[in-house]
């Protein structure tokens, strides 16, 4: 199948790649080797330079120094066209599916098959061409299906199909499992193994170290834009990877003493959401505790949180925050009562990316920061300064746009917005998705400090390790209802999973 003009398996090396942005050294002397038929894991904290390195490989950016060697030919930079011609393809973290086209149309986008003098689309030829690829990947959808109706996992498979349709010799996976369920992840790893056995080279970028440990033949670690070392197959283990990524040992948030919880601060009685209108939910979170909310993707956890917070309509039932019922169901009322939400998608919902850090932190606090309707800029800056110290937000200046921050620091800004108003209840929706190990620990620490100060915390998480390591109790949701609540001493992965699939 590897009938590439450049010759069978790819043989690629990056040598001393350097890339500088104003105020930021993204890469410094980074080297990386990859050959056909192996899976190379690339790991590193956010901001370690992984994305930049991948963009260099894809030809999206030209490095300021270093060489790229492909099949023995050395060059200073690639263009997107050159990268594609060498058989380099991406499966992006954010999927680029065109929901208005069918599957074949997506796979062959830009390379449509036509017939006749007017270049009429030949849909049948396109479907015929795509079908064998889908079979090879074990896809459960047809070439003629509308791409808009595919699940996230199937959309990803579609992206892989697209990569394979281009005589690809190297596929770069960027955080491919971050929005997949457990079963879907298994399927993806099987596909990756199969591709490797067929001689394709795979770059696997992920924060999920368990998956890297399972799939990678070799691991390259980046730290602060530099090589932090390589691990051979038999050296790959989680603790070692973590140590190399952060350059020190990580103390885990585990094993804290059980706490006596305070009064109920968040009470849900018969709450029904638009996603599951027939399922009333009762739930209580007490002051001083972190209640984990586990479940499969699509179990209705986020819907429940948004209905409490007032972003989504509440079909019925009552939400009480610190004894105060939320009658109108507006976001403003929830915030006023002391309920805050750190949303799952921080770029779309948590932040105004082009606003300065200061302005983002001030946004929900403006009413308090204002004097006779005008924003008190000094108070605004003081608030941001305070947050920077408390949460150790790493930035050169608070006037910078949050878009320039790493994921972990962005999440701290979202947190800072709410901490400023002394909340009684905070709902965290996937609080550490896509952020690095070091920032994760800081987010956990901030959550723990909040709980210790008497705040009630509801944490939605699909990361099993996080659910077990951080929660005092865990409620498990399945198909819109609470399938069960596990106390601290009964927290085990197996018990949670059993409830989640019930």
């Amino acid at each position, binding site marked *: 199948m590897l009938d590439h003009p450049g010759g069978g398996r790819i043989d690629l090396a990056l040598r001393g790649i350097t890339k500088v942005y104003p105020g930021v050294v993204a890469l410094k002397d980074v080297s990386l080797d990859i050959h056909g038929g192996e899976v190379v894991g690339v790991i590193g904290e956010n901001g370690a330079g992984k994305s930049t390195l991948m963009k260099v490989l894809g030809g999206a950016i030209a490095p300021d120094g270093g060489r790229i060697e492909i099949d023995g030919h050395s060059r200073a930079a690639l263009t997107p066209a050159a990268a594609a011609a060498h058989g380099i393809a991406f499966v992006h973290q954010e999927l680029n599916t065109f929901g208005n086209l069918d599957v074949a149309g997506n796979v062959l986008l830009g390379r449509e098959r036509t017939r006749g003098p007017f270049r009429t689309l030949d849909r049948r030829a396109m479907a015929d061409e795509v079908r064998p690829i889908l079979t090879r990947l074990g896809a459960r959808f047809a070439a003629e299906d509308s791409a808009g109706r595919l699940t996230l996992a199937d959309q990803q498979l579609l992206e892989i199909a697209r990569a394979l349709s281009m005589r690809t010799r190297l596929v770069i996976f960027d955080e491919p499992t971050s929005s997949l369920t457990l079963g879907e992840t298994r399927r993806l790893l099987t596909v990756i193994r199969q591709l490797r056995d067929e001689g394709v080279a795979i770059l696997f970028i992920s924060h999920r170290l368990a998956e890297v440990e399972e799939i990678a033949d070799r691991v390259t670690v980046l730290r602060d834009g530099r090589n932090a070392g390589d691990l051979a197959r038999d050296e790959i283990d989680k603790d070692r990877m973590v140590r190399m990524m952060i350059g020190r040992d990580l103390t885990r948030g585990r094993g804290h003493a059980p706490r006596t919880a305070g009064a109920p601060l968040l009470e849900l009685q018969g709450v029904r959401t638009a996603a599951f209108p027939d399922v009333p939910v009762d739930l209580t979170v007490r002051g001083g505790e972190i209640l984990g909310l586990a479940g499969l993707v699509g179990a209705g956890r986020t819907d429940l949180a948004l209905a409490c917070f007032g972003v989504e309509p509440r079909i019925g039932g009552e939400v009480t925050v610190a004894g105060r019922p939320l009658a109108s169901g507006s976001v403003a009322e929830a915030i006023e009562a002391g309920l805050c939400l750190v949303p799952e998608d921080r770029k779309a919902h948590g932040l105004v990316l082009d606003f300065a850090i200061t302005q983002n932190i*001030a946004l929900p606090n403006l009413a308090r920061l204002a004097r006779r309707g005008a924003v008190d800029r000094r108070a605004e800056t003081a608030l941001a300064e305070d947050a920077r110290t408390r949460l150790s937000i790493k930035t050169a200046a608070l006037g910078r746009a949050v878009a320039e921050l790493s994921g972990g620091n962005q999440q701290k800004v979202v947190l800072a917005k709410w901490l400023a108003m002394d909340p009684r209840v905070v709902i965290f929706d996937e609080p550490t998705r896509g952020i690095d190990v070091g920032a994760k620990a800081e987010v956990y620490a901030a959550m723990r400090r909040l709980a210790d100060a008497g705040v009630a915390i509801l944490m939605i998480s699909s990361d099993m390790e996080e659910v077990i390591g951080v929660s005092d109790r865990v409620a498990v949701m399945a198909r819109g209802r609470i399938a069960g609540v596990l106390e601290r001493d009964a927290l085990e992965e197996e018990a949670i999973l059993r409830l989640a699939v019930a």
Partner: protein
Amino acid sequence: MHKKDLGLLALVLVVGAVVAAINPRFLSPINLANTANLIGLFGLFSIAEAFVIVTGGIELSVGSVIALLGVIFVDLIVTHDVPWPIALAICLVLGAVFGLIHGWLVTRLKLQPFVVTLCGLLIYRGVARFYTADGTAGFGFGDSFPMLEWLVSGRTGGVPHSIVAFGVIAVISWYVLHRTVFGRHLFAVGKNEEAARYAGIDTRRVIVAAYVICLVLTALSAVFFAMYTRSIQPSSHGNFYELYGIAAAVLGGFSLRGGEGSIVGVCLGVVLLQMLQNLVNLLGIPSSLNFAVMGSVILIGVIADSQFARYRAAKRQALALAALERGGDAAEPAPR
């Protein structure tokens, strides 16, 4: 003042100097006063347009509203003998009602602002023509309203009151947009409506308020225009004014995607556009080329702005690279 505003100010001064050098009549008191009057008249609805554009919306019915409310204002006074302060109040209230309707359609029925206000453009224009049976609405020769005329089209020490009104509205608008909580909410809604909602901002109310402010200011502008022309041809009065307002806002740094722009910028945009009109007259350029000159200058301005931005980015990049080569970590590592 933003860098963008400074650039625009420089452009205004350069164009002014060139025109003055070629034709000294540009600086004559009569010409200055007339230009100032026009700046005031056109400035009012340009600021109005800016309030909607900053939310990421657009208001296309400005010109038609100016025609319709102008006709109503004149008709109330002339045929119905309504005292002018009451006629003025009725026009402002009507503007607010139109704004409420537009805002409601945009936020509740989730219609696109372009579509809603395009329909407004057609409807108000049609109603204005029907209202006068396609005739001209105007004041008779004998009609005189000394107080109103002095207020709206009078001058104090040679300074037209329209530009005074524009100045006052501009200062208030600047304060509202750049200093108040409401202004911050307007920018936040324009940049990321979802994130604003998650921050507890009632985004629908903010957007409705923007349309109301826009059309109330437009109503005020309609009265100024009615008194300026004194007779209104409803089929042509105010034609293209919405595009003029949008052009001034874009020149002034407003992004049609929302969340960007400054009142200083839109005011300078208005000044520049009026100077260009004036330049066409003074330099003997055929007045049929009027729009072509305006369009070209806006296009050149927008291109220059985007090129400057690229140049600055490249310069920063070069500096950072030089710092790295000089000795390791002058630039901080990470956040990427």
